[in-house]
């Protein structure tokens, strides 16, 4: 696959993800950045085709926040490098959830599950954090 076609494929893959993250006005700017930058960050995986949509396969991680308490897959969550990951966050208050390093954002509407879907292509340990509350929901250990 030529680099250009690989980039285009990745862009297509990234679009639904970014669209999901960009439902709220404050996040619009960050969303635009993540769309245009998706080929750059995803470039090393350009050679491995990932035909399945991220939601269908890979690892599903779920956390819920209620009354300031975090339940579900908290703590250090191991993920294999390159695996498609879907993080589902449900909160009882409005906030914004941010996955560091991958720089993914999703708006949280009370009671409504929000999804972050991406391919775990960057190795390292990353925090998933509530922007307004400053709470760390979990840390993703990709390796």
């Amino acid at each position: 696959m030529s680099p250009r076609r690989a980039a285009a494929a990745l862009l297509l893959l990234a679009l639904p993800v970014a669209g999901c993250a960009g439902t709220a006005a404050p996040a619009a700017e960050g969303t635009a950045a993540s769309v245009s930058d998706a080929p750059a960050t995803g470039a090393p995986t350009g050679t491995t085709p990932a035909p399945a949509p991220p939601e269908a396969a890979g690892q599903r991680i779920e956390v819920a926040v209620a009354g300031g308490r975090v339940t579900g897959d908290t703590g250090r969550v191991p993920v294999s490098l390159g695996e498609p990951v879907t993080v589902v966050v449900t909160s009882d208050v409005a906030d914004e959830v941010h996955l560091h390093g991958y720089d993914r954002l999703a708006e949280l509407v009370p009671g409504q599950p929000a999804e972050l879907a991406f391919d775990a292509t960057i190795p390292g340990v990353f925090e998933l954090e509530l922007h307004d509350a400053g709470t760390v929901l979990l840390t993703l250990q990709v390796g």
Partner: protein
Amino acid sequence: MSTLAHGVGSRTDLPIPIGFALYGAGAAILVSFAVLLLFWRTPRLGGPGSGRPLPAGLQRVLDGAPLRRGLQALALGVAVFVVAVALLGPEETSRNLAPWVLYVTFWVGLVPASLLLGPVWRVANPLRLLHRLLRPVAPTAPGAARLPALGLWPAAGSLLVFVWLELVFPGRAEPRTVAVFLLLHAVVHVALSLWFGEGWFARGDGFEAWSTLIARLSPWGRRDDGRLVLRNPLAGALATPSEPGLSALVVVLLGSTAFDGLSRTVWWQTGPGAADDTLSGTVGLLASIGVVAGLYALGTRLSGRLAGQDPGVQPGRYAATVIPIALGYTIAHYFSLLLLDGQKTWILVSNPFGADGVDLFGTYGNRVDLTAVGSDAIALVQVGAIIAGHVVGVTLAHERALLSARHARASDQLPLVVVMVLFTLGGLGLLFGF
């Protein structure tokens, strides 16, 4: 906004593979005994008078006022600019240059710069220029006579303040915090330098003292006759003048880096540090420094007692031998931060005030490439730095023991070597994450 252990950053390193940790630990123990039993039995590293002099003309330029004042003026300009960006630039840490410059490019970058080039911050410290400009206000420096007795204790205190800010203070990543810190640091140290004289910076400015300490392991040195020389870094490290507070300075650095590693472990995050607040962080930081200080004092004093020497002078005598261990810890913990999240500085510098359409160096559209260095390479550098620091430290301690007693018995050096092995195993354990 960021709750990561160090000042800023979007990621932390993966735990090193268990094999790396075990091989590293084995190598550290093996090398320690090889140094004790197989290495030279009489001192053989050069003393303070060793080294090959640089050409006199080059020394005149390097020691000359034009170069120093020029670099200080440049650094002052950059510092003023960073404070301006911190106060007037974008409010979010991820878009503001200042935190990245302070915590990554400057603080972490100071280590390789000093290791390769020598005591760069002593030459370029912009506060020295401010001091010169303000000296006419207080020409007498009434406290100058008391400075030698204080030694490096003020620098140890100054560094403790900075590592607390970097590792504990909840608002550390906010641009405004960076501005307040830089301004306070400048005001406090310039005021103290007017009281104690220009000699204050070498003993009281933590950044300058740290840069000078690392520069002890650079290939450059100043011979006891004042000539700049190229010499064996081990000889340079052993020639470190013994000052009060030298061991405190080294211990603060080693202990704080250990706390940085500790605070990244699952054990800390779910145990003692679960509250993730100022109290738990402060207690953890002070406890880490306390443990390192206690072990170090115990090892050196016990070694001194076995050798029949005054235990009281031992911690100061061996302080320089811990510099490479502290340096190894630092490289292991911050190397990836400089190369990965450090890219942020070079991206944001293209548009420091976050104005629309500004892209001075054409880098503003770039993204931090967190895959620029692979995780295997990072783990290798981490273990390599810890082990190299250990080997150099044990070697220096061996030579130091021979210098203080011509026929020092290997068994006398054992307590200090055991403590160094503990530091190294602890360092590897923190990288492995227990």
